[in-house]
């Protein structure tokens, strides 16, 4: 893990209508670091990830990716909103894995992985499929390359979704409760893939309910509640000895 900061949130706020979901969030993610975010539902965790990927726009504060503002481009002294293409090329660098997998239902597992490189990077069908094969091999699903999402189990779908995100060669991976929709016996296979990624040095921001994963794999643990970072620290220390009262209460309900 280097000391270079890849992603930084400064005073981020986000509301939906009158409901303030994020209220002044500060956070730093260093290159190669695995940051896990835990906390009660409705605490703004998923919304924050969607903001990081620019699927939602933040209302106040700033998001910085490699020191550059997310959502704006600088032209001399003028600041402009990103156009669609600038947003798309930013999202290429930020991979995202969703709670409900969201695999493209009209495509095979292989095509799901290959479509991004093919359409966005203009790779040939053959080259994109080669890449898909390598990535499906990596998540242990090469034999499912021609299966449609409806023919795969939840765990398999989520592993294909991880391969799909990796196909764009992102610099950071966002996991939005990647195992919450899975049957208990399928959680392990997905966590294993995530663990391997972290070991390889991928920068990861992981919203999760898997306290075990956070303790074992996370470099930093963040407890998020009511739209702010309530406590932050070393995962092992924080889980065994939480300082914040709300962290204590939350951990006692999930452990």
């Amino acid at each position, binding site marked *: 893990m280097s000391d270079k900061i890849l992603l930084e949130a400064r005073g981020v706020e986000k509301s939906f209508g009158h409901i303030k979901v994020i209220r002044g969030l500060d956070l730093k993610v260093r290159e190669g670091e695995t940051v896990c975010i835990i906390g009660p539902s409705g605490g703004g965790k998923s919304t924050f990830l969607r903001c990081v*990927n620019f*699927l939602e726009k933040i209302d106040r504060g700033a998001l910085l990716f490699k020191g550059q503002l997310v959502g704006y481009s600088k032209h001399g002294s003028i600041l402009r909103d990103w156009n*669609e293409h600038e947003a798309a090329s930013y999202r290429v660098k930020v991979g995202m894995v969703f709670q409900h997998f969201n695999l*493209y239902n009209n495509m095979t597992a292989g095509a799901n992985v290959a479509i*991004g490189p093919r359409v*966005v990077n203009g790779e040939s069908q053959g080259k994109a499929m080669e890449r898909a094969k390598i990535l499906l091999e990596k998540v242990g699903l090469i034999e499912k390359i021609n299966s449609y999402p409806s023919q795969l189990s939840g765990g398999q779908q989520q592993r294909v979704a991880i391969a799909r995100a990796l196909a*764009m060669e992102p610099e950071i991976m966002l996991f939005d409760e990647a195992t919450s929709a899975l049957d208990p016996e399928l959680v392990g296979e997905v966590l294993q893939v995530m663990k391997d990624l972290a070991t390889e040095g991928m920068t990861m921001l992981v919203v999760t309910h898997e306290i075990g994963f956070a303790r074992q794999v996370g470099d930093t643990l963040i407890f998020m509640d009511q739209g702010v970072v309530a406590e932050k620290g070393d995962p092992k220390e924080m889980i065994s000895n939480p300082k914040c009262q709300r962290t204590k209460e939350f951990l006692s309900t999930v452990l």
Partner: protein
Amino acid sequence: MVKIKNAEKETASGVSTNLKYIKTKPWGSWIAAAILAVLLALLLWAVAVNPNIKWPKLGEYLFDKAIMQGFSITIRLTILSMVIGIVLGVILALMKLSTNTVLRVTSSAYIWVLRGTPVLVQLIFWYNMALIFPRIGIGSFSLNTNHVITTFGAAILALGLNEGAYMAEIVRAGFLSVARGQMDAALATGLTRRQAMRYIIIPQSLRVIIPPTGNQTIGMLKTTSLASVIAAQDLLTVTENIYAKTFLVIELLIVASIWYLVGTTIASIGQYFIERKFGAGSTTTGVKMSDFLRERMLSSTRALSALSYLNKE
């Protein structure tokens, strides 16, 4: 009638079982079917021997040259109006789902007016366009409206523009049927909205869009007959022209009906194959005859099995 006789047996508890299974008979269905069959036969007989219907004339006009030309105009009207309707429907649907308020309101207003007035009225409007705009064109270049909008042109415009309003709603429903997460995932991968629509959303929405579009096409084939009021030379126009001269009203209406039925039947078969190709799961298939017979046969097997288990320890 199947009876399953069971030899008298003594069970361990000493209760004797001498049971006979008699299948439930669907008396109601049989009576209804018999009544209907008689009524149908009476109706057919009344029509077949009716001296007011000259059956040989019907055969004479079935493949009449004018009728064939009329049928061909009807088919062309149907195809062209549906093409206009589908293209317009996609554009209107995209406008209605746009974030741009002007586009959204324009689309809604179009659908409101075109769907809210009778297509017959719209047809006559287009036919009489020259009364409002005698000449159409840009600047010094203009043409006589009646030369540009012929009766065939007026029919296509009226039917196609009207169909656009209906197709817009069908296409919009199709787009909305695709789960929200599909767009999220596509954007997160780095696709633009346009690319996501093309590769992910539209292909998935076809499954929902195609069945009602087939229905619309079949409906359009029949709706084109309205164009006879502006003498568009479609099947009904030529049919009316012939019976106005020959007074063979019923015979020619039967001829026209046969050709409309041929058209809609072919369209239905086409729809079946297209739906199967796109894996449409939204059509309900009726109970198949083979299912019905299997169910009848199974009832004996089931009863036998129940009996044998009843007699088991």
